[in-house]
């Protein structure tokens, strides 16, 4: 009881301290009257053909910041993300090799048919979010997160053996994930490699032509802005996120006996 009183008092103090800091102007004018200078330059440059050595060829400023202006940040964020998935896969390393003993018949016919339609809708929305990431809000991460809901629901509705029957194996998903990551890394250095091969100047993470480099990804395709690297990075990220999440979900939904067998260990592991 005393513990709870102490906690509550501490938290009231935290809330009051934060409010006082805000009152003193810790966040600047509230509500903000105008956007910051750096935001103005991003918005000005992102689709400004008049300054085409600094533009990102994408009318969507957020994606342009994520994959172009601050692209290196996002690359290392991707590394952290895949590190975490890799850690989860390592903890379950033995589970993937064992055949799952659970044989479920899934849910009723009504749910199964509905799920088949819903799966199509989920995948369509996901693909649209990922492929239009450089035009409208969205992108590879968001599309991937939406798409990975589909396998999760499929496992619950149709049973775990669906993936075995359809030959969607652990190794195939892992290969897809690694191939997407490889292509993602390659598209960030593609212009640098091309530049080295043809003896021209190219940069890491180069999207459009710069002041000293004429190399450029295509800015338009069939009259629609393509955003250069943004489109390719979004697509590869979409594939990588989808396959990575599907991997972890299939492992997390393994039957208890299989996981316990892996976790029983050799000694008292307290």
């Amino acid at each position, binding site marked *: 009881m005393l513990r709870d009183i102490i906690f509550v008092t501490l938290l009231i103090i935290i809330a009051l301290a934060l409010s006082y800091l805000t009152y003193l102007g810790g966040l600047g004018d509230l*509500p903000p009257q*105008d956007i910051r200078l750096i935001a103005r330059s991003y918005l000005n440059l992102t689709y400004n053909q008049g300054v085409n050595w600094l533009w990102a060829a994408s009318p969507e400023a957020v994606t342009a910041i994520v994959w172009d202006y601050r692209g290196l940040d996002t690359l290392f964020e991707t590394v952290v993300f895949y590190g975490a998935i890799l850690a*989860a896969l390592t903890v379950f390393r033995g589970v993937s090799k064992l055949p799952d003993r659970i044989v479920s018949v899934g849910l009723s016919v009504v749910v199964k048919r509905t799920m088949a339609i819903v799966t199509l809708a989920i995948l369509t929305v996901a693909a649209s979010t990922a492929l239009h990431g450089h035009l409208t809000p969205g992108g590879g991460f968001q599309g991937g997160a939406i798409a990975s809901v589909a396998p999760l629901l499929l496992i619950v509705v149709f049973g775990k053996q669906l993936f075995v029957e359809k030959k969607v194996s652990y190794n195939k998903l892992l290969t897809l994930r690694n191939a997407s990551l490889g292509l993602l890394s390659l598209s960030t250095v593609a212009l640098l490699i091309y530049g080295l091969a043809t003896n021209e100047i190219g940069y890491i993470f180069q999207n459009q032509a710069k002041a000293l480099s004429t190399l450029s990804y295509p800015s338009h395709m069939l009259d629609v802005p393509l955003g250069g690297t943004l489109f390719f990075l979004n697509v590869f990220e979409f594939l990588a996120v989808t396959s990575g999440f599907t991997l972890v979900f299939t492992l997390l939904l393994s039957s208890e006996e299989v996981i316990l067998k892996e976790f029983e260990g050799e000694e008292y592991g307290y």
Partner: protein
Amino acid sequence: MDIELVKFMFILTVMSLYLNFAITLYGVVAKVNLVKKLIALTILQDTVNVFTVLIGYRLWRPGLILQPPALTDMNPTPEIIKDFVERSVDPLPQAFVLTAIVIGLAVTLFLTTIVLHVNYHFKTVNVDEIGGMKRRYIHEEAV
């Protein structure tokens, strides 16, 4: 709509986010159930994300046309871009939040795996009980 009302609602939102922050922090620290801790942590993440997006907000004023807040012309003239910069909110916090959401998702997945592991190992997700088990085990070892 009155501008004073808009300002009041903004301050109210900021305060409610601080309150949410405090409550979820309480959940993370004080709850003994690991799953409840995890849920509180995800709500804490979302609170911070909403707060970050809120910082990029731009105050509506009477006479300011904010719609649409996006670039709709695919061959924009300098005037259209200038207009767009005047309408749009700050995109940088949104880009940061995107990063934070992805990292948060990865952390949540990893923590879920660990909680599952703990549950299989100790048959409970109550941290007090797990602590008691460990104390008993060390005591038995010593005796």
